[in-house]
């Protein structure tokens, strides 16, 4: 058990900046999830914590000790690899015992520890098998076991569930959550799956490929709830949430005591009042200018007439019914907001039939699958971002 402090860490490959100015503090017993699209440096950062990649700059402090240039074997970390990286010529028992043998523990102590871990992970009946004779889920558990027996200062997990099929992944995700409650060891967990990030992380760090504009890969570190409710910038807003947030160019104008935000090129306009947006003053500064407005697909709904809802009639191009939810895809004659992010790992980025926007409503409330459909928007859940800095404007 230990704290981890990542201080201004940087990694260059020749001229290319893979990571720069990343600073995160992980509390004792906390699970920090690193999430981001391919090439954002999340795996590199994890490997730097493990000591498998050298730091180009900054410091790595583990349990109060500067381990920036310490060999992996002397860092007291345990890692679960994406492809498990089990020793194929050793049995499950030997796989788990290997790390303890390196630490020259007594044979009976090793045996007790390994069998203990095997019991926790339900591997007792498999200890004499070799990895080749195990299923994907079992191999994954052995990889976990190899980390658990060591009782390290910190667990490092590199997309440990990504090689499992969908059903097993959900099951292992739940098991991981239980396991971490049982063990309570500081953990850094890398994933590109935001559902994993949101469910497993005490806090989530969103990383993006390095750009000189922001000067760091780190976009935001926060609780999953805060990331969703108050994304710091357009990147985080677009990355967290599925389907992704819709972004529109909107004109801000004063109207009475409040403001009005009109989606450019359309007559869709939302009245913003102090009641729904207590911090409207910041946005008031943008009156007469345009901003980026974000609406999450789930804050569209079938018309209810409830207060704070704004009716919109949308020409739905195509809809997808996914069990209880329906995704309605539509387009508006409005300029595209240049998105400086990619969600290459998500399939729902590209629009269907040229639709750039989507709404998500309960299937049972669906009145039709295409054509003009009346919906409403929860105005209190609108997000606003500065066009140039991409930063969130608090409302």
């Amino acid at each position, binding site marked *: 058990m230990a704290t981890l402090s990542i201080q201004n860490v940087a990694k260059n490959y020749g001229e290319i900046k893979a990571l720069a100015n990343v600073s995160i503090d992980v509390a004792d017993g906390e699970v920090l999830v690193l999430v981001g699209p391919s090439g954002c440096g999340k795996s590199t950062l994890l490997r730097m914590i493990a000591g498998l990649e050298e730091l180009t700059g900054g410091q790595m402090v583990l349990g109060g000790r500067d381990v920036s240039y310490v060999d992996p074997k002397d860092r007291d970390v345990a890692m679960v690899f994406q492809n498990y990286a*089990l020793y*194929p010529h050793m049995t499950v028992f030997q796989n788990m015992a*290997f790390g303890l043998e390196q630490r020259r523990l007594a044979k009976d102590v090793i045996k007790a520890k390994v069998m203990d871990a095997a019991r926790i992970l339900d591997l007792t009946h498999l200890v004499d098998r070799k990895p080749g004779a195990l299923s994907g889920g079992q191999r994954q558990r052995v990889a976990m076991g190899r980390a658990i027996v060591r009782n390290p200062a910190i667990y490092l997990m590199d997309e440990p569930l990504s090689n499992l099929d969908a059903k097993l992944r959900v099951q292992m995700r739940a098991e991981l959550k239980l396991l971490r409650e049982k063990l309570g060891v500081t953990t850094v967990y890398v994933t590109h799956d935001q559902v994993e990030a949101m469910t497993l992380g005490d806090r989530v760090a969103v990383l993006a490929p390095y750009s000189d504009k922001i000067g760091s890969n780190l976009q935001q570190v926060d609780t999953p709830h805060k990331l969703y409710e108050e994304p710091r910038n357009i990147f985080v807003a677009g990355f967290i949430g599925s389907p992704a947030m819709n972004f529109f160019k909107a004109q801000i104008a004063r109207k009475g005591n409040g403001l009005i935000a009109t989606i450019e090129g359309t007559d869709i306009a939302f009245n913003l009042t102090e009641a729904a947006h207590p911090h409207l003053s910041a946005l008031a500064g943008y009156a007469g200018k345009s901003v980026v407005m974000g609406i999450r697909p789930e804050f569209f709904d079938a018309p209810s007439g409830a207060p704070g809802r704004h009716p919109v009639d949308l020409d739905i191009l195509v809809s997808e019914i996914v069990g209880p939810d329906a995704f309605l895809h539509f387009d508006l004659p409005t300029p595209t907001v240049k998105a400086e992010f990619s969600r290459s790992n998500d399939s729902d980025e590209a629009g269907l039939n040229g639709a750039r926007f989507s709404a998500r409503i309960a299937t049972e409330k669906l009145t039709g699958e295409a054509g003009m459909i009346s919906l409403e928007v929860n105005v209190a859940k609108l997000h606003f971002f500065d066009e140039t800095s991409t930063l969130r404007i608090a409302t």
Partner: protein
Amino acid sequence: MIGQNTATRKITLYALLALVMLFFIGPIIWFILLSIRPPSTAFTMPPVLNFTPDLGAFTRTMVDPGDNSGQAVNSLIVAISAVLLNLPFSVPAAYALSRFKFRRKKFLMLWYLSLLMAPPVAFLIPYFILMTNVGLSGTYLSMVLVMQTLTIPFSIWLMKSFIDEVPREIEEAARIDGASGWTIMFRVVLPLVMPGLIVTSMFAFVFAWNNAAFPLVLSSQRTATLPIGTLSYFTNTGVTWGNIAAAAVVAMLPPMIIFLVFDRFVVRGLTFGAVKG
């Protein structure tokens, strides 16, 4: 009609295969027959097949008066030593070439290969002079050393391809588990490339066993290997084909046995299960 057509094609195919097989195996069978047939029928055409087998050539070459059995022992000494000297050099080199990034790596790999491209005969005289100057001419060591110039480059290439297939993550997992470089090498990497070690040793052994050029100039009467013994039956006074055949058949045995026993290692597959299969 269609059935007949495929039948004809099948027969043609098998006939072709038989021809190709005869081309490869024919000489071996012919040589084995040559070693046990009476000398008078050695070159008759068509070959006489109804002769009384005679193992006399084997006793003449191996036991009395021939000294081929002693030469077979020499061959064994040279070949086994060649293997033992080969691995400690080629395995670390292959590991380094597989794992580390360094300048001129490609060049180095090709340079190794260039040693295999030149005909070994070209080096015979320089090696002979070299070995004579350092006083090693005629010793087992001289032959073993010179053979390394060909077996090590080949072994490095072969071993590199095996080590390339061991996922790096396995070594990284071992590093994090606290293993030292040596432990990783001996307890993780080498067990995983065991088929490669066996195949490499096999090729090194067979190469050293069969090589006639280097022993021809480097061996002495006492250290002559079996191929030299076989060649010695080509004399000024005549060629004793039965003896040559008998010695050659004996020389063929070890490589054949080795390939039969270790055949399955040529097909690799031990790393399966390390990563998602």
